[in-house]
C-alpha cells in the first residue's frame, strides 16, 4: 500500500510539473503586453516594466526562473495588480471557491444521487419523470439564464436571498443552488444508469434468493455497488468545482478563483495565471490522487499495481 501511494505520489508530481511546463509556454504564446492598460499615456512605461520583470529575456531563462519559484512555492506578485501576491490571492479566495464547491457538492451530490436512485427504483414513476424533466431543464437552459431567473424570482420578487455578494451564509445560498443544479442532474443521470446496470447483476438475484427484503437489497447491494464507479468521476468533478465557475462567480459577485483565473489570462497577468494554473493542476492531481487511493480502499476489487 505504501509503495502504491508513493508511486502515485511520484506520478502526481510529474504530472504537475508537466502541466506547469506546458502551461508556461502556452501562456507565453499569448500576444500582447501585460502592462498596457486601457488608456496608457506612455508605452515606454510598459516597455520598462517588461524589462523590469524580465519578460524580455529569452523564454528559457524565464522558464528557469519560473521553475525556481515553483520549487519555492512562491508564485510572486501579480503583474496587472501591483501589490497583489499570487499566494495570498490563492490563500484568500480559494477558501471561498472551496466553500461554494463543498456546499454545492454537499447539496448536489446526495440530492442527485438520491434522485437517481429513486428514479431508477421506480422507473417511469413520478419521481423519475420529475428528475428527467429537471435534468433536461438544467441542461437545456444556459447557466447564466438560470441564474438570472433564480435571482429574479428568489431575490427580487420574493426577497428571500440577497441577489449578489458574499458576506453572510445567506449570500451563499443562491450561487450554491445554481452551481448544484447541474450537479444534481448529472449525478441523477449517472446514478440512474448505474443502478439499472447493477440491477442486472447476478448477485442481486443471489441476495433475493437469500430472502432479503427489497429495501435491504437496494441499500446494501445495489446502491453500494452503483456508488463505486461514481467515485472515479469525483476526482475531476471536485477539481472542476474547486477551480470555480466563472459564470456563477461573475453573476453573483462571488470572490472566487474562477473569475480571477479568467481575468488573469485576459489581462495577460502571467504570474497570476501561471500561479493559478499550477495551483489548479495541484488541486486536480491531488483530487485524482485522493480518489485513486480512496478507490483502492473502498473497492476491494482494485488491485494495487
Amino acid at each position, binding site marked *: 500500500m505504501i509503495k502504491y501511494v508513493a508511486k502515485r505520489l511520484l506520478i502526481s508530481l510529474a504530472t504537475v510539473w508537466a502541466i506547469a511546463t506546458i502551461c508556461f509556454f502556452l501562456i507565453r504564446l499569448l*500576444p*500582447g*503586453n*501585460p502592462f*498596457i*492598460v*486601457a*488608456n*496608457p*499615456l*506612455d*508605452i*515606454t*512605461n510598459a*516597455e520598462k516594466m517588461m524589462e523590469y520583470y524580465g519578460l524580455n529575456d529569452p523564454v528559457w531563462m524565464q522558464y528557469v526562473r519560473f521553475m525556481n519559484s515553483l520549487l519555492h512555492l512562491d508564485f*510572486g*506578485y501579480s503583474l*496587472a*495588480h*501591483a*501589490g*497583489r*501576491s499570487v499566494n*495570498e*490571492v490563492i490563500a*484568500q*479566495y480559494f477558501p*471561498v471557491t472551496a466553500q461554494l464547491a463543498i456546499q454545492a457538492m454537499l447539496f448536489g451530490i446526495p440530492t442527485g444521487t438520491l434522485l437517481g436512485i429513486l428514479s431508477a427504483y421506480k422507473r417511469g414513476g413520478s419521481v423519475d419523470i420529475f428528475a428527467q424533466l429537471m435534468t433536461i431543464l438544467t441542461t437545456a437552459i444556459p447557466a447564466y439564464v438560470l441564474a*438570472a431567473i433564480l*435571482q*429574479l424570482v428568489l*431575490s*427580487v420578487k420574493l*426577497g428571500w436571498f*440577497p*441577489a*449578489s*455578494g*458574499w*458576506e453572510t451564509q445567506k449570500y451563499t445560498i443562491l450561487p450554491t443552488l445554481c452551481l448544484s443544479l447541474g450537479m444534481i442532474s448529472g449525478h441523477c443521470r449517472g446514478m440512474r444508469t448505474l443502478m439499472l446496470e447493477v440491477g442486472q447483476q447476478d448477485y442481486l438475484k443471489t441476495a433475493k434468493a437469500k430472502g432479503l427484503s427489497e429495501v435491504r437489497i437496494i441499500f446494501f447491494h445495489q446502491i453500494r455497488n452503483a456508488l463505486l464507479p461514481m467515485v472515479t468521476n469525483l476526482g475531476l468533478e471536485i477539481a472542476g468545482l474547486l477551480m470555480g465557475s466563472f459564470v456563477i*462567480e*461573475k*453573476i*453573483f*459577485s*462571488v*470572490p*472566487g478563483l474562477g*473569475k*480571477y483565473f479568467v481575468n488573469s489570462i*485576459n*489581462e*495577460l497577468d502571467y504570474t497570476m495565471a501561471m500561479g493559478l494554473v499550477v495551483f489548479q493542476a495541484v488541486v486536480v492531481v491531488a483530487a485524482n490522487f485522493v480518489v485513486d487511493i480512496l478507490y483502492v480502499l473502498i473497492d476491494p476489487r482494485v488491485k494495487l499495481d
Partner: protein
Amino acid sequence: GTTADKTSNAGNSTAADAGNNTADSENATPTTTESATTDTTVTETPVEQETLDTFRFVATEPNTLNMIESTSNLDTYVFYLTSAMLYRSIDGVVTPEVCDTLTVSDDRMTYTYTIKEATYSDGTKITADDFVYYLVKKYLTSENCTYFVGGEDTYNNSLETCEGIYSVDESTFVITMTSPIVTFNGQLEIYPLQKAFVEAKGEALGGTPADLLYSGPYLLTDWVVGSSMTFVKNDSYINADTLFPTQNLTLVVSSDASTTYSMYQNGEVDAIINVNKDLYELIDQADCTYYSADSLWGIEYNTTGFTYTDGDGFVSRGDEVSALMKNLNFRKALSYAINRSAVAAVVDPTSTVADRYVSTSVKGTGDAAYVDEYTLENTAPLEGDAEAAVGYLNAALAELGYSDVSQLPELSFLTFDSASQSMYVETVVSLWKSVLGLENVTINLQPIQSAIMSMVYMNYDIYLQQLSMNPDDMLEQLGFWKTTGGVSDVAGFQASGVPSFMASMHADEAYDTLVTDAYTEFDDAARFSMVQQAEQLLYDSYTFFPAMAGGGYYATKSYVEGYYSTYGENGYGFANLVVYAH
C-alpha cells in the same frame, strides 16, 4: 459640516487665490450653483431625522492600491478615501486639507508648501518628506519629468531624489518647475507616502488593506476582490469630525447588470456609481443624476502609411491602402457618412454626441462652457450628410483612379472587444455599407492589450479610440496629438525602436506650436483661442474624428444625500454624505 469647509477655505487666501486663478476655469465638475443647492438642502433637513451609519454603493474596484504603480483612475478614488491630500476637492470646491500655506513665486515656477500637524492611522506624523517622496516616485515619469528641475536626470538614472522637489524642514517642501505651466496650480492630487512603509512592504505594497498606510477619512478594513470593499471611518484623519459623517462605506462590486439592478431594487445597495446603458432603462429615472461626459470616442484614421512588423520594424502598409487612407476626401467621406447623434443614442443612450476634443465641462472665460464660447467651423454635421459623403467618396475615387467603391482595397477597423465598442464599430461599418456602398471594411476585435499594441504598431487602418478627458487639463488630451519625441517621422521611430503612443496620425508643426505655447499662456482668452485654433487644425485634418462623449448617470436612493459622481465613468465622491433611515 459645511461650515468647516468655508473656514478652511477662508484661512488660506494664498492658496485659494492660486487655485481660483486657474481652477475656476479648469476645475470643473458640477457647477458651484449645484453644490450650493446641495448645501441648502442639507441645512434645511431637520436634524432629528435619524441617519444610518453605513453607505453601500456599487462601483468598480481598483486595480491596485499601490500608489506608485497605479495607472488607473479607478485606483485614485480609493486613495481619495484612504489618504489625506494637500488639497481636497469636495463637490467641486477645492479646499486645503493637510496644506497649511502654499506660496507661489511670481514667475509661477517655485511652489512652497507648509503643512499642518497630521498623522497616519498608525500614529506616525505626516511629514513634508512624505509628500516629496510621493512626488518623486509618482510624477517623474518619461512624460512629466521635464517639467521639474532635475526631473529628467532623476528619471533617466532612476534616482531617489530630485533637484526640483525637496523638503526644507519637517513641515515645508518646495517644487521648482522648469517653466511655468498653466495647468499646474499646486493643487494636484498629492498624497503623503511614507518611504519607510513603502520600502518595508516592497512588492506587497497596496495588495491588501494591511499593505497600505492610511491618512484619509476612511480605513479600508476589508477587500474581497471581486466582491466588496469595506471602509470604516478613520478617527485620526485630520478632518475626522467634519467632512465625512458616515461611519462605514461598502463598495460592492458587481459586473452583471441584472445583478446590480436586483441589488439596488432590493435595497442591498444605496447607490450605483455608473448606471450604464443596460441599467439605465431599468432604474427609476428620478434616482438618476447625469454627470458630464468625460471620455471621448473618436475614429482614428491611419494616415502614416506605415506599419510595424516584428522582424522588419516599420514597413510600408502597401501602396493602395496607404494612398487611400492618406486621401482626405476619402476620410471625409467616411466621416460624413456617419450619423453620429443617432449612433451615439443607439450605442449608449447615456452618452452624448461629441464634436470637439475638449471636455464640455471645461468652463470658458465667462459662465458658458469653453466649447460653447469657442466654436469650430466647417465641422461635419452631427446627423451626417449622406449626399456630401458620397460626393467626397466620388472625389476620392476620382483622385485615386478607381471607378467603383468595390475596387477599394480591404480595410480593417480595429477596436477592443467590449460590447459597446464592438457595437459602435458594427453600426458604423453598416452605415458605410448603406451610405457609401463600402463593403470592404472588416472588423478586427482584439482583447484590450492586443488592440492597443496593434494600434501602437499601426496595425490598423481605422481605429475606434476611447480617450478619457481630463476636465482639469484641457491641454492634456490635445497633447496626445502633438508630434513629440521625433516620432512624427518614421525614420526617427525606427531609430529609437520604441514606438510612441498615438504618434501616428497627426503631424502638424503649427498644431504642435499652438499646443506647446498654450501651456505657458496664462491669459485665458488668449489660451482658449490658441486651443480653438489647434482644435480646428486637428479637425480639418480628419485624422481623429470625434464621435461620442461617454457620459453617464449615477443613481442614488432618495434617502441618500451628499453623494455625487466625480468625473470619469466610475468615480465617486462624497460631500457630507448622509444616509437617512428608510
